[in-house]
């Protein structure tokens, strides 16, 4: 076994030569969980050809979705509408409709902001950092994680905007010349945050779009091919899902619309190798600059707190602690969304294997433990620093009136990922999903604990107040979840959910030297590499 090249073993397994190989005992495995380091787990299962990958991924965007899609979309869109109504109510009435008071001036609004922006970090992490480290398994999840990033940043962007109270003055945060001759204060971390978050949103969007250009071209060419063959001529017709009455008939066919819209965004991509070369260099540059960007953005978000003098916020551990927490929460959300999607979409399990899920479960375990270390280190420094206010702030977190929030956070974020030490639990999609759900809840509570417990007990007991959310607070947050899920469902329905071109490039059929003769220098067998770098 060890005399064989890993790619050769993989190729043999893919072509059926080793399909019957025994795998770990008692595991309901798809064959990707082999622990033998000489065997590289295949990234695409079921002996798929290049054309199969096109068919599977384009099928999600071209065929009618399963019966679950429309009811689910109707539900999330309703929830999103409630959120929009709550925001409208807030704007026309004032921030008094929230539970904020003199002492706790930031509560659910900023909690939600940090929660969503944290989730938004996994996409760029998967795309950029895993790309730089040449982790090929990223192709299974990077597109949907990037999409999730964009939608999470949209949700995050709502909250700082509406919490300013008079949203029609929100342009004050940008350095725009104005008749008052005033400018923003560049020494404020809140202004850094404006630049960091808007840069992050823009760069993530560019990264996502650039990755999709070749896949848009695939969808365009398929629609074009059907049109030329005369099979795509049926006009779009929207019927009522219950009564079947025709509601709308468009003057063009679905394939005509696809050829136009996908074609528009594909900007005429035709797969030229000279284009691919520049494309790969540009993609690598974007990955290279996004990696420090993703680390900087959550560091700057943490500066909003860390540069203040409030006990519980004024700590140097905040930037790395926030970044680890963001990666943790983001991966949890990726798993939360993709595990059900994997069950609901045909053949998605061939592209998103148990191995991929296990890898992400391991990342949850690592980052969850890092976050747990940060929690304990905060306590240690509060004691070791000898500042009585700081020590009180932390004692109050664990035993004060918000003790339940603190212990929810600890049990969800620190204790629940420890289940992944057990192989059986980190390879079972059901247990991974449950832990991902707990982590998502725990990460929301982490931000709530940081923000509200530090604000509700200031230096003087006369300033002490409690925060209680109003129904508007709660429904605005629930509504933001609706906006997020609605956008994600639209993504699953209309866009290429997997990076087809990248998947084809890592398949054995995509190897220019034939299968079984790997040339990948990243696996320690660089000696036989004869390509023209």
């Amino acid at each position, binding site marked *: 076994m060890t005399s064989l090249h890993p790619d050769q073993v993989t190729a043999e397994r893919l072509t059926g030569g080793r399909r019957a190989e025994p795998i770990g005992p008692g595991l309901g495995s798809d064959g990707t969980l082999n622990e033998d380091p000489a065997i590289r787990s295949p990234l695409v299962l079921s002996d798929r*050809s*290049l*054309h199969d990958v*096109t068919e599977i991924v384009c099928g999600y965007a071209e065929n009618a979705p399963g019966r679950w899609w429309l009811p689910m979309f109707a539900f999330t869109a309703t929830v999103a509408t409630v959120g929009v109504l709550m925001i409208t109510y807030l704007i026309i009435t004032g921030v008094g409709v929230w539970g904020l008071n003199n002492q706790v001036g930031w509560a659910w609004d900023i909690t939600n902001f940090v929660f969503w922006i944290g989730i938004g970090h996994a996409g760029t992490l998967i795309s950029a950092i895993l790309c730089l480290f040449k982790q090929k398994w990223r192709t299974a999840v990077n597109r949907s994680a990037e999409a999730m990033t964009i939608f999470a940043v949209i949700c995050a962007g709502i909250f700082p905007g509406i919490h300013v109270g008079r949203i029609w003055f929100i342009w004050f945060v940008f*350095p725009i010349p104005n008749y008052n*001759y005033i*400018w923003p*204060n*560049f*020494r404020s971390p809140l202004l*850094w945050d404006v*630049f960091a978050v808007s*840069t992050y949103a*823009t760069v993530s969007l560019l990264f996502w*779009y650039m990755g999709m250009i*070749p896949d848009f071209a*695939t969808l*365009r*060419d*398929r629609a*074009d091919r059907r049109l*030329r063959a005369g099979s795509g001529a049926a006009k779009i017709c929207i019927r009522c899902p219950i009564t079947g009455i025709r509601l709308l008939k468009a003057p063009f066919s679905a394939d005509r619309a696809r050829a136009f819209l996908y*074609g*528009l965004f594909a*900007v*005429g*991509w*035709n*797969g*030229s*190798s*000279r284009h*691919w*070369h*520049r*494309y790969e*260099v*540009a993609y690598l*540059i*974007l990955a290279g*600059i*996004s990696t*420090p*960007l993703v680390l*900087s953005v959550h560091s700057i978000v943490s*500066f909003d707190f860390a540069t203040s003098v409030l006990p519980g916020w004024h700590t140097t551990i905040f930037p790395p602690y926030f970044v680890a927490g963001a990666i943790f929460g983001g991966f949890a959300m990726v798993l939360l969304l993709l595990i059900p999607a994997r069950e609901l979409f045909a053949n998605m399990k061939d592209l998103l294997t148990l191995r991929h899920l296990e890898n992400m479960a391991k990342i949850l375990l690592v980052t969850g433990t890092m976050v747990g270390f940060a929690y304990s280190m905060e306590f240690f420094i509060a004691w070791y620093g000898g500042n009585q206010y700081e020590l009180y702030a932390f004692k109050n977190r664990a035993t004060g009136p918000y003790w339940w929030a603190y212990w929810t956070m600890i049990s969800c974020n620190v204790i629940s990922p420890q289940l992944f030490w057990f192989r059986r639990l980190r390879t079972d999609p059901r247990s991974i999903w449950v832990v991902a759900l707990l982590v998502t809840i725990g990460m929301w509570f982490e931000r709530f604990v940081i923000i509200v417990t530090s604000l509700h007990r200031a230096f003087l007991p006369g300033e002490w107040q409690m925060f209680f959310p109003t129904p508007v607070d709660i429904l605005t947050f629930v509504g933001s979840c609706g906006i997020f899920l609605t956008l994600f469902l639209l993504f699953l329905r209309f866009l290429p959910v997997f990076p*087809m*071109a*990248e998947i*084809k*490039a890592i398949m054995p*059929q*995509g*190897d*220019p030297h*034939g299968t079984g003769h790997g*040339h990948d220098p990243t696996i320690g067998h660089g000696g036989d590499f*004869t*390509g*023209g770098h």
Partner: protein
Amino acid sequence: MPVSDYLPFIRPPKARFVTERGEPVWGVMAQFDDTAGAFHAAEKMRDAGFRRWDLHAPFPIHGIEGAMGFKRTILPFLVLGGTFTGVATAVGMQWWISAIDYPLVVQGKPFGAWEPFTMIIFELGVLFSAFASLFIMLALNGLPRWNHPLMRKDRFLAVTDDKFFVVVQANDPSFNPEQTSRFLRDIGASAVELVEDA
């Protein structure tokens, strides 16, 4: 790519070859069905000394730069220009606003202190680099371009699925419709087709 493709008022160069129906010949395309075949065909095209030719593929093939024999792109240096523009914008904007136009006393710090400016310098540097990498990449590729002589070919639509096409343009010095087609068949093409100009 000739300028006349983009600017309709510039007269295109006269075609060297025309079809029987009088359409100018744009080039020849040859289909290959697997990655290894396309890769080795590219090596043979390079060795045969063709200049204006390309290999179209559904995904980036590893090591194709060497097989086709083209140089590494200058894109990174151009992107660096974008980075410097972003950094200069951030430095100029923050310094002019904070130290010249609107000096604001914050904690008694010097108006032009550079330390608080570092965050936005970094962010704008990244932002401008990202725009530069996407748009300069597209510009160097001659995109966006929503029509192309190759796209009129039904067979070519499989290039974004699982087929590979070696394409030789008619303005290559050693291009000849019959000889080039024969050469492409000899190096393993499964189908060869003449491409007319749009």
